């Protein structure tokens, strides 16, 4: 895949980091403002996909592997499951998906117990999953052409 024109590449250089930061903001503030893990994860994955499309896959020196994002995705869903199961192990109540951390005041960034942790885990999961699918399609094409 050849890269796009200089205009597209320059605009991508400027916009890509801003889009990435916006995705992080959407994930972290998921319990305060509209958005959350699913929306923020897709935005983060979109910033990477934009970078790969604007510059070519050769220019970015991709390792022609998707092991990294695949491992990240698997570990994110493992974190999700482990945090959900901790509530089951806690004595007395023992309910799956119980909010066992202190809730804090509504509206603060650090509040709502385990909901921000779930948001971050789902955000990593969604971003890594979309990026893995895109990389798999890209690598498949390169291997078939070769």
């Amino acid at each position: 895949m050849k890269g796009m024109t200089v205009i597209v590449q320059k605009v991508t250089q400027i916009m890509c980091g801003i889009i990435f930061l916006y995705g992080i903001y959407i994930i972290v503030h998921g319990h305060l403002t509209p958005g959350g893990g699913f929306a923020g994860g897709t935005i983060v994955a979109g910033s990477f996909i934009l970078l790969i499309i604007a510059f070519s896959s050769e220019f970015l020196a991709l390792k022609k592997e998707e092991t990294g994002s695949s491992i990240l995705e698997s570990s994110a869903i493992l974190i999700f499951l482990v945090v959900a199961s901790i509530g089951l192990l806690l004595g007395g109540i023992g309910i799956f998906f119980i909010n066992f951390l202190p809730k804090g005041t509504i509206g603060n960034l650090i509040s709502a117990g385990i909901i921000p942790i779930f948001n971050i885990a789902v955000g990593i999961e969604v971003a890594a999953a979309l990026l893995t699918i895109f990389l798999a399609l890209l690598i498949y094409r390169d291997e078939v052409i070769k």
Partner: protein
Amino acid sequence: MWILLTVLLVLMIGGAIFSLEAKDLLSAVIAYGIVGFGLVILFLLLQAPDLALVQIVVEAITLIIMIAVILNSTREEVKTKSKRTAAYVVIAIVFAGLFLYFFNRVTGSLSTFGEHMLRMSQAYIEPGAATTGSANLVTGVIFDYRGYDTLGEATILFTAVIGVLTVLRVKGRR
């Protein structure tokens, strides 16, 4: 308000019909994009910013991937001869009439669009912020009341990635 909604819905239905009938696959995909981005504006008008955020990003990424697939494969639709006899037209009209009749029966007994609130959703909305500690009620419902569903969604995504890797990786087959 409802005029805008009606215009958008008619545009979306037109785009969907055109994407079914178009000869060129690229224009079919672009016409399908009308449906997705019209849905984004509908969500914003109906005050659902969470859904609009997810919809606009997913729509953009899937459109990019579909256009990339079409540009790398064929753009022409494979011609198939379909026989349209009178019987098919009669059956289609009968079922459309039946659907419209029952749709009218069902929606006639409901209250006005957007004003009705179920007893069940009131039980979530009123104590929602206090019990979950989350200022955004949607996230509170997704990760607290409906934690199992979210786990299922994440698992579906995980399984989809495994399926894609299994089908596409040439390296793994060697």
